């Protein structure tokens, strides 16, 4: 599905990613752990193609195609979809207009919004005055309509109250396990995802297959999500990485 090879990325002339190698096989969900400032969001944004991130070396292969320099919307149209942690406000533009534009018309906007408790927000300007939880639900609403085959989720549980976490978690589950075919199947799942998580909370809702730890712009280790999360929780990132490095 997604393969990243020796990816180097600069932001404003400063190298943030220094040779990332990573793979998300079709039908798999991988999580990405890492301390603050390790390059997690930079990696997701670079995969999506945002302009601020300059790839200086390496490549991104998506569905077997080199998309390293492909415009954002072409990646989206190939089936890539992102949930941002801090999406911009757009004054004057109603959420409804974007949600309708993101879909291909076969899903009912109102119904989809209702399921996310977002129907009252359709006439509101996008993200303007939204709370943390509302931003997450707005992002999920847009993704629901967009129906990507590959999800990039940037800390879906951050800034969400306990009640909303359940709604957000269940929604992510239902999107990932949606049966609408993407051309490949792994058990009962056809979608793939790369999910950033700080707390691991989202693991309660998705059956993740693999985990990566990124630090200093490099993938330090990979393994089973629960094992890695336990290491991080017990020993912190530094120890976890050290110990995994030894094992490697």
């Amino acid at each position, binding site marked *: 599905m997604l393969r990243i090879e020796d990816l180097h990325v600069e932001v404003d002339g400063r190298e943030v990613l220094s040779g990332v190698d990573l793979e998300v096989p079709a039908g798999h969900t991988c999580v990405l752990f890492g301390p603050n400032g390790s390059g997690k969001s930079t990696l997701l944004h670079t995969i*999506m193609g*945002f*302009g*601020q991130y300059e790839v200086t070396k390496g490549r991104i292969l998506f569905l077997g195609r080199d998309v390293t320099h492909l*415009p*954002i*919307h072409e990646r*989206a*149209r190939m089936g890539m*979809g*992102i949930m*941002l942690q801090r*999406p*911009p406000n*757009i*004054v*004057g*533009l*109603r959420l409804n*207009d*974007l949600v309708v*534009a*993101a879909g291909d018309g076969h899903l009912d906007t109102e119904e989809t919004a209702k399921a996310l408790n977002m129907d009252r927000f359709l006439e509101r*300007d996008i993200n303007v005055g939204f709370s943390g939880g509302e931003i997450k639900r707005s992002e999920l609403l*847009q993704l629901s309509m*967009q129906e990507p085959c590959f999800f990039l989720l940037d800390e879906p549980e951050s800034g969400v109250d306990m009640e909303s976490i359940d709604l957000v978690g269940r929604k992510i589950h239902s999107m990932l396990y949606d049966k609408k075919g993407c051309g490949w199947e792994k058990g009962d799942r056809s979608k793939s995802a790369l999910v950033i998580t700080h707390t691991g909370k989202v693991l309660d809702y998705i059956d993740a297959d693999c985990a990566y730890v990124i630090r200093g712009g490099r993938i330090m280790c990979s393994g089973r999500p629960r094992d890695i999360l336990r290491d991080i929780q017990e020993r912190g990132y530094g120890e976890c990485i050290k110990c995994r490095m030894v094992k490697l």
Partner: protein
Amino acid sequence: MPDGQALRRRAEEALKRKGAFGRDYDLDEFEPGSSEGDTYETLEDITPEQKQTMMNVGVLPSAEERSGSLVYVDNAVVHQSSADQGMELLPTLDAMERYDWLSDYSWRAVPVDKDKYTARAYLEGANGYFIRVKAGRKVEFPVQTCMMIDTEKRTQHTHNIIIVEEGASLDIITGCATSSHANESLHLGMSEIYVLDGGSLSFSMIHNWGEKTGVRPRTGVELGKEASFVNNYVIMKPAGSVQSYPTCQLNGEGAAAKFNSIAISHPGSEIDLGSQVIMNAPHSAAEILSRSITLGGEMIARGRLVGNAPDIRAHLECRSLIMSEEGRTLAIPELEAMYPDVEMTHEAAVGKIAREQVEYLMARGLDEDEAVGMIVRGFLEGSIRGLPESLRQEIDDAVSMANLGN
């Protein structure tokens, strides 16, 4: 009430007086447009070309769902019709003849000696439309009027008087345009608007001028107690030089006025739009919202709010996008208060579209042009609630046509 002699004297003395803002026009270079013209029983009988010009500014030849129509070509009323018993719609000069009391309103909200443009309109005996909605009458459909310049190098002068009586309400949609026969002409449109106690008026204007047309409207508005007035000014097409700065006096307690302007300044255009609201009565409220884009022309957004009474509320907001290396944008917001118990605010913002916003929409599958178009459309019309459908359509078409993503 000033007598005719006195008005004439004041006008003559003002003939050389330049306008407060905007490029100065030498009126001697323009002949007055003809005040004679064929008249038409229905709008469907009008020439196909004129029909097209009208339709481009939202005036419907079918007059369907319209309570009345009046079309003014050069300086002649060529059509008038009214379908509402509670409302009168007729040429201003006819109305002046019919009603002696009208001289109490004529040239009151717009002083005849404001500048050379008002003076010229008065001295040329400008005709125009008179609309009166009788007390308590809620007119269901909008009245449509069209001011069309059809002859090159001419002045069009109009004198419109609108009176919405106590508790009455009305919507007006006006389309102002030049036909293909006129470009370097001058529009001098005088409008005096009186909304009496408890009345309400919504006044929407769409413009489609020639690339060299000069436009110098002068508008004065007076509101009574609990009266409300909404003014929507939309100009999306290229124009030579437009300078408009209506003055609205809130004279009755609880009166409320709202001025929305939405403009695009194309290369070579000078668009100078503003408005001022003077709050003379307690508990009155005013809002001025301006959304503009320069694609290479000059764009000036003015706004002035004067708190002349206690317990008033007023807000002024100018936002402008710059979408070209050329061009210039100037925002001039002014607040003036004479009392401590006022709540007056303003915001002004000038800049380009944030790249982050464009990319956000692209991540949902929109290409760059679509993303920019959607943001621009939202910027222009989204923040202004309750715009009539024809204005919304005009903005959508302009955004599509201007190909703003490039």
